């Protein structure tokens, strides 16, 4: 590079400021010497300040999100039911115009069959606040009955903003670290926002319970337990108070709806009766959760907690009754959903971009040894039995590349090739099968990591991580 730089000087002559030399003659250089990283004085700020890097990252994330939103949204221009966008708008209409007691009940003004409110109260309060702002900007957006299917450009802009704010709320809630009380309040709020959070409730419960046990049930542990119970009760009360005595009825209705209303079920297996299906799925889910939760209660650690969150959510997703794709929020699984909503372009751009960023920053293809994957303890205990464990890194790498290529092939096929006549659902089913295999594998992996997380390996490390929060 230096040699190329020196070519840029003018044709001959001394005392001329060439391109190369002018940059070296900046007046502030101390004694004209080259600066190295080690020679920085006490007054200098290392590199670009942290705040500007953070700002740029956040701005970039927001820009990408808004650019993605330039595309269509689910149910755009599709009467009579439209889609989730219309559902959100409808909830704003309901919460703003009707008194609180009527939000969850079927009345003449509130037809529960047209996107009835089926999320807990915090979502309703959030919709209410948004509706208030919407009313200030343009009352037509939330007028009772007449605003159904309202789609206009400024309104689209407004709705996108409210979604972002909702997510910001989530982000703020999730930021609590080792503050147990604040964390439990936050979790209760989250639970009251979307009941899908129930997936995460068991690890929370077990982790906090385990912490209480560790502190000893006689002294500090009991105090902590009491405080936690108190905060949970208070949070729930605060959310449900406006509903007064109707709470019982609401809960009954909703739970009844989820489990027993046959007419709304999409996937029905005609072999076993629904009640047996229910019991079976409940049993399997519970069994798959059990090992991780027991381990967490007996040996509460932050690392174990995080792993347990993932494995419990996976168990619920895999085995529970009537699950919606959105509860997994993994991009590849959303493919059929996105194709239905004509969101192919954002998918085709963000998935490779996200993968590229992950691959680059996590150096996935390099860290494939047993040590890196935290399976050292597991591999040690298996050493005697299985001899192919030696080529572990290569197996992992090839598995990873295989799964990536499989997903890429399925994506391209789903988007470009029409399915054969006698198998119209070929591609969504294929995606579902592939994803299911992946998730089962991950479930096994995470459970293995949790269970073999031995005391020797991690005593110091766990303590350090816990202190670090």
């Amino acid at each position, binding site marked *: *590079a*230096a040699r*190329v*730089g020196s*070519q*840029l*000087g*003018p*044709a*001959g*002559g*001394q*005392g001329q*400021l*060439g*391109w*190369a030399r*002018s*940059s*070296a003659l*900046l007046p*502030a*250089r101390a004694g004209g010497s*080259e*600066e*190295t990283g080690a020679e920085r004085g006490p007054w*200098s*700020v*290392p*590199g*670009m*300040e942290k705040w*500007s*890097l953070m700002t*740029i990252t956040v*701005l*970039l994330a*927001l*820009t*990408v999100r*808004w*650019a*993605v939103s*330039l*595309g*269509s949204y689910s149910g755009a221009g599709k009467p009579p039911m439209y889609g989730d966008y219309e559902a959100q708008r409808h909830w704003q209409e309901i919460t703003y115009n009707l008194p609180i007691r009527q939000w969850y009940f079927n009345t003449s003004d509130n037809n529960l069959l047209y996107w009835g409110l089926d999320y807990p109260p915090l979502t309703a309060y959030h919709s209410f606040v948004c509706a208030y702002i919407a009313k200030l900007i343009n009352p037509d957006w939330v007028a009772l009955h007449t605003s159904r299917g309202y789609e206009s*450009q*400024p309104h*689209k*802009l407004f709705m*996108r*903003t409210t979604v972002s704010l909702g997510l910001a709320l989530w982000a703020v809630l999730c930021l609590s670290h080792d503050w147990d009380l604040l964390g439990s309040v936050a979790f209760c709020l989250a639970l009251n926002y979307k009941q899908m959070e129930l997936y995460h409730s068991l690890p929370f419960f077990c982790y906090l319970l385990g912490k209480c046990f560790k502190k000893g049930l006689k002294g500090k542990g009991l105090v902590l337990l009491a405080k936690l119970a108190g905060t949970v009760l208070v949070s729930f009360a605060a959310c449900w108070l406006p509903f007064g005595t109707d709470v019982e009825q609401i809960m009954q209705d909703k739970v009844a709806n989820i489990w027993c209303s046959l007419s709304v079920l999409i996937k029905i297996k005609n072999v076993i009766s629904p009640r047996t299906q229910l019991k079976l799925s409940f049993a399997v889910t519970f069994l798959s959760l059990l090992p991780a939760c027991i381990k967490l209660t007996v040996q509460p650690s932050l690392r174990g907690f995080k792993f347990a969150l993932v494995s419990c959510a996976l168990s619920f997703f895999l085995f529970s009754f009537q699950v919606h794709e959105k509860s997994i929020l993994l991009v590849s699984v959303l493919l059929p959903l996105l194709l239905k909503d004509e969101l192919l372009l*954002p998918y*085709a751009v*963000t998935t*490779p*971009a996200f993968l590229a960023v992950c691959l*680059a*920053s996590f*150096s996935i293809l390099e860290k494939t040894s047993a040590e890196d994957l935290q399976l050292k303890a597991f591999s040690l205990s298996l050493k005697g039995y299985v001899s192919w464990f030696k080529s572990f890194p290569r197996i992992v790498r090839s598995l990873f590349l295989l799964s990536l290529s499989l997903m890429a092939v399925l994506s391209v096929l789903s988007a470009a090739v029409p399915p054969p006549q006698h198998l119209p659902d070929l591609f969504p089913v294929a995606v579902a099968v592939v994803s299911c295999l992946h998730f089962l594998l991950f479930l096994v992996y995470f459970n293995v990591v949790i269970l073999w997380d031995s005391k020797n390996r991690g005593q110091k490390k766990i303590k350090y991580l816990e202190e670090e929060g």
Partner: protein
Amino acid sequence: MAAGGRGWFRALALGVSFLKCLLIPAYYSTDFEVHRNWLAITHSLPLSQWYYEATSEWTLDYPPFFAWFEYALSHIAKYFDPQMLVVENLNYASRATVFFQRLSVILTDTLFIYAVHECCRCINGKRAAKDILEKPTFILAVLLLWNFGLLIVDHIHFQYNGFLFGLMLLSVARLCQKRYLEGALLFAVLLHFKHIYIYVAPAYGIYLLRSYCFTANNADGSLKWRSFSFLHVTLLGLIVCLVSALSLGPFLVLGQLPQVISRLFPFKRGLCHAYWAPNFWALYNAVDKALTVLGLKCNFLDSTKIPKASMTGGLVQEFQHTVLPSVTPLATLICTFIAILPSVFCLWFKPQGPRGFLQCLVLCALSSFMFGWHVHEKAILLAILPLSLLSIQRAKDAGIYLILATTGHFSLFPLLFTPPELPIKILLMLLFTVYSFSALKSLFRREKPLLNWIETIYLIQLVPLEIFCEIIFPLTPWKRHFPFVPLLLTSVYCALGITYAWLKLYISVLTERTSVRQKADA
């Protein structure tokens, strides 16, 4: 980010390309229809009809190479949607058409990426910065690849500036690497793609003459007349003639040259675009309007004598100023010429190699922007992009760059007026501005601050201006009677900033030269 070799360049290029793909469904302006029309004209009609066709109002007004470029594209277009190639299909915009045109812009930007890569190679990387984010080449790559103006003009508003600027930057890089003939060839080709680059032709001409045709200087740096090389001049002349022959030759043979010239330089259009480009004439118009209002109030002027045609009425036609003298195309040409002269003289009498050439180039572009006839606000990019190359070298240039880039980019806001694009343009603008400020500040952290307090206040005032124009004003009752007020305010406010940056750059270039002369004499 892994600080390995050129991995970061690829990441930057790939990242911005992904972002461009996401912008495919965004709003596009009438320029989209313009290019679709040109695809249709060049595909469906014979060469002799290209510059005569007038079914659509958007007639072909770029030089022949661009027409050939559209012709080449049309052969790929027919696989996407053959209907777009029918001349009568005015305003045809099927999804395949939009996808194809947007994709063509994204793919032709590869030339721009390559040119940026070459420019980064030319920069002297003497500052061995440990952190990748501090390297001047990294900063330059981001400032060019992620340039806000280029992104929104090319990938939202829709134009093909990417590869054209790629050609320009590539020719600059070649001249910096002393590959003069290649640089000259690239610029000649560029001129025949889009003739707006004639703004910077004087810089090229003088620099090539001075540094290539005269091969040596005297000891004190002045010209050695005897080192004139006929060979070099002949080669240059040959290149220019060859390129012009390739481009205009067919039309010369057909006797259509006057028609082509009249299409390329339509002086029937007014002094200013419907939205005044923030140049000297915007200030001139504003003063004229203010004096008119003042004159009416104080009864110096007769209200019946004032012409009704409004300058911001959205029509592009001839109009008269009321108080100040009217401006003719010849007047603007003379003003531009006078404005360019000092920088050209500097380049001739005291060439400082590629840096001097770049300074002259930026000044020519800016001066033409300031005084040109019917200048588009997008032309400010002609000055901003080359100035990026200078900004990472010296703190003074960095300060001027920050003012010019921020103001110039802000003046592009009225191009995107639709609600869905509002968050995008604000976020992208913030992204670019925050990055340019923090990166250049950290690069020159050992010197005094890049901007003084007046400049900082001026730039900060852009925020309330934007809030007023986009949010407050539409909710007031004035919107119906004076719809042009936000445009007027933006234009005039940015004109102040751009004029200031132009003057500051001029002064710094002129005073730098004299100090060099003093040093050399001493």
